[in-house]
């Protein structure tokens, strides 16, 4: 019955998707120069890691954790975006879905890098030291190294395993135009959202907050989720606009898409600021000696301008620039704001991870590693985008969302 109805719809409406299917190249052709540039950046990053391991191992491990977590969070943001669209039954974003799908490919790649880092450098976390005694028995049990590594592996495997069916169903629908894929994706999405909500909270506690094991902030997981989704939206905006400039999205990406993405970026950036302030204000107000040192450390000396820049990049600039609806529709404005937001996310993670090292990391190694990670992630994006048609041409939501009362 369903397929029949779908088929009728398909025949009745002059689907844009059919046109797209013909006009679009089935796979993305990355411009060779860009590809070479990305590979050059990767080589530079590799050189940075090797040089850093010899001269500045502390810099390498801090930036390794920062950049791989950055990658994992972009992958999570892509999957989260797809899952949210499926669960809410949104039709507006279907044409762009291949972009977050490509972002989801970062999950296994950056996840593996993160796990390797966690295994290689136990001394990165102060609680692995023999003379460290946690305040509570519960914390001692939780921060056991084998348990910690097992948890990390479970998070990464769970996320990758739940992102995979979403991508596979989407691909198969391209071939058979079967409605059942949408239904299945919706169920996987709901499951992913539940798993994600719990694991991102625990993962950010494990990987970032336990850098300072005596410090506690209960809003830390939500705060990380806000930053993660904001950066993911910024990446998505950059990729879709790049694809439009390159050609494949020229007839697909409209001003309305940009407007909606811009609104989401605006909202999530403000959500991030809200949580940033919740965390800061409560700790400032209570002035508890177990909590306040976290901020005292970050508000002194050279950290202070970075601390302020964090709020400016992540919220003040996106908020002020994207306040008008014209700005949310303007590709150049969106690209610039997205770049600012990504820099802000990097700085946010830098402030979460680095101050425990008591000093600035060696700049050259840090820059080389950051460029290397950028190159790697770009190659992963292109790889993900090149695997299927750039528009999910047979998605029933592409042209007309199913009518009210239609049983899905």
């Amino acid at each position, binding site marked *: 019955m369903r397929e029949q109805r779908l088929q009728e719809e398909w025949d009745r409406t002059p689907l844009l998707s059919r046109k797209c299917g013909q006009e679009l190249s089935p796979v993305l052709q990355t411009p060779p120069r860009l590809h070479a540039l990305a590979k050059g950046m990767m080589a530079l990053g590799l050189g940075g890691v090797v040089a850093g391991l010899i001269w500045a191992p502390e810099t390498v491990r801090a930036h390794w954790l920062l950049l791989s977590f950055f990658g994992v969070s972009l992958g999570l943001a892509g999957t989260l975006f797809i899952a949210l669209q499926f669960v809410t039954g949104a039709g507006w974003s279907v044409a762009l879905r291949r972009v977050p799908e490509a972002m989801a490919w970062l999950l296994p790649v950056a996840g593996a890098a993160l796990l390797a880092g966690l295994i290689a450098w136990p001394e990165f976390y102060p609680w692995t030291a023999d003379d460290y005694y946690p305040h509570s028995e519960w914390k001692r049990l939780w921060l056991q190294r084998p348990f910690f590594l097992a948890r990390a592996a479970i998070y990464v495997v769970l996320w990758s395993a739940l992102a995979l069916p979403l991508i596979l169903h989407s691909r198969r629908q391209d071939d058979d135009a079967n409605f059942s894929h949408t239904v299945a994706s919706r169920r996987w999405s709901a499951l992913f959202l539940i798993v994600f909500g719990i694991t991102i909270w625990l993962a950010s506690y494990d990987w970032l907050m336990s850098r300072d094991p005596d410090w506690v902030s209960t809003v830390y997981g939500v705060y990380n989720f806000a930053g993660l989704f904001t950066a993911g939206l910024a990446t998505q905006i950059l990729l879709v606009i790049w694809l439009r400039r390159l050609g494949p999205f020229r007839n697909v990406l409209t001003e309305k898409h940009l407007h909606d993405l811009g609104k989401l970026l605006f909202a999530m950036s403000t959500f991030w600021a809200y949580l940033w*302030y919740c965390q*800061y*204000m409560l700790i*400032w*107000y209570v*002035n508890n000696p177990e909590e306040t040192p976290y901020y005292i450390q970050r508000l002194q000396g050279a950290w202070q301008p970075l601390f302020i820049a964090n709020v400016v990049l992540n919220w003040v600039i996106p908020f002020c620039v994207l306040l008008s*609806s014209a700005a949310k529709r303007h590709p150049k404005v969106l690209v610039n704001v997205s770049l600012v937001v990504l820099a802000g996310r990097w700085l946010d993670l830098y402030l979460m991870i680095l101050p425990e090292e008591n000093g600035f990391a060696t700049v050259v190694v840090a820059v080389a590693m950051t460029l290397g990670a950028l190159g790697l992630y770009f190659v992963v994006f292109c790889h993900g985008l090149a695997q299927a048609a750039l528009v999910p041409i047979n998605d029933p939501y592409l042209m007309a969302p199913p009518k009210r009362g239609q049983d899905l």
Partner: protein
Amino acid sequence: MSRRLLVGTFTTEHDLLEAARASREYGYPIVDAYTPYPVHGLDEALGLKPSRLSRVCLLCGLIGVGVAMAFQQWTSAIDWPINVGGRPFNSWPAFVPVAFEVMVLLAGFGVVFAFLGVSRLYPGKAADGPASAVTDDEFVLMIEARGAATDTEAVLQLFQSHHAICTEEDDEDETAPEPPARNWRRWNWVLGGLLAVTVLMNWTLGSDPSRPNAEFLPEMVRGVAGESFGVHAELPRGMVMQTPEPGVIARGQMPLHYQATPKDAERAGEELTNPLDGNDARWQARGAAVYANTCQVCHGASGKGDGPVSQRGIPPPPSYLAEKALKMKDGQMFHVLTFGQVNMASYAAQVSREDRWAVILHLRKLQKTGAAP
């Protein structure tokens, strides 16, 4: 002035959007569209200008933030400064949550009332939609029969081609008064509101002006914790305030086991020594200040007993430069300051224990400088 209206009724938002777009293409003057829920893209299909309500929203929000921040600054730092945990009075991080809430409140209400005002909506207004089905499952497009749409047949044809289930021509007379039968409804709201205000006033404004009116949230006024000087049935002696356990000593209040007798004064001279460091400039300054405030009126600036009080007929106190005072030990002086001697009363209540020792430091300094020449 009356106008002719052409009304097309559709069953899907898609048909309505397409019909609206086509009508605009042909230049038909669209009066309005009626839908049961907000339709995405309809404002563009109708060719409406972007709403200016967002500017009202921004303005109200800015006013909210500004007023709330300024008000809190005034209450917390200017009008009634309160020390909260040693923070500065104008601690803006503490003001932000309230400013945020006031911003949301003003922006929300401001934009709703601006919308109601612009659309001339108010409680009890008679519905002026084309048909009640537009609040349920039908979509209506209204076109005025003038200009390009004078040819009504063509317009109705266009409606038909977009799957309209019903097309009709309607004459609307704008000068006609609203049907009086519906007018009384709005008075329901006015009368109901007046009645509510009257009842509320009657309840809150009590007849006895000496007693407080109705208390909202009495837990806030009468806390579960006992008042310091209140009564409490379950505590010993029926009072909240309890006497300390025997042997308890308050901080900094070590008891002095001396009587107000010359014999005990001598004993104090033997037993007590000045705990303060005489070379510490801070204690010297403190001693000088306490001396100037408390002792100088009788003893005089140089300690010779020539203060302004004794110049007005009160018997002057002995000079510090006299033999007796020079030989007196620190502990005995402390006893004199604490319990008094001859005409001098006890200063234990006015001058703290620490300050008494600091004054003794100053006295010794006066003795040194006074004896030298």
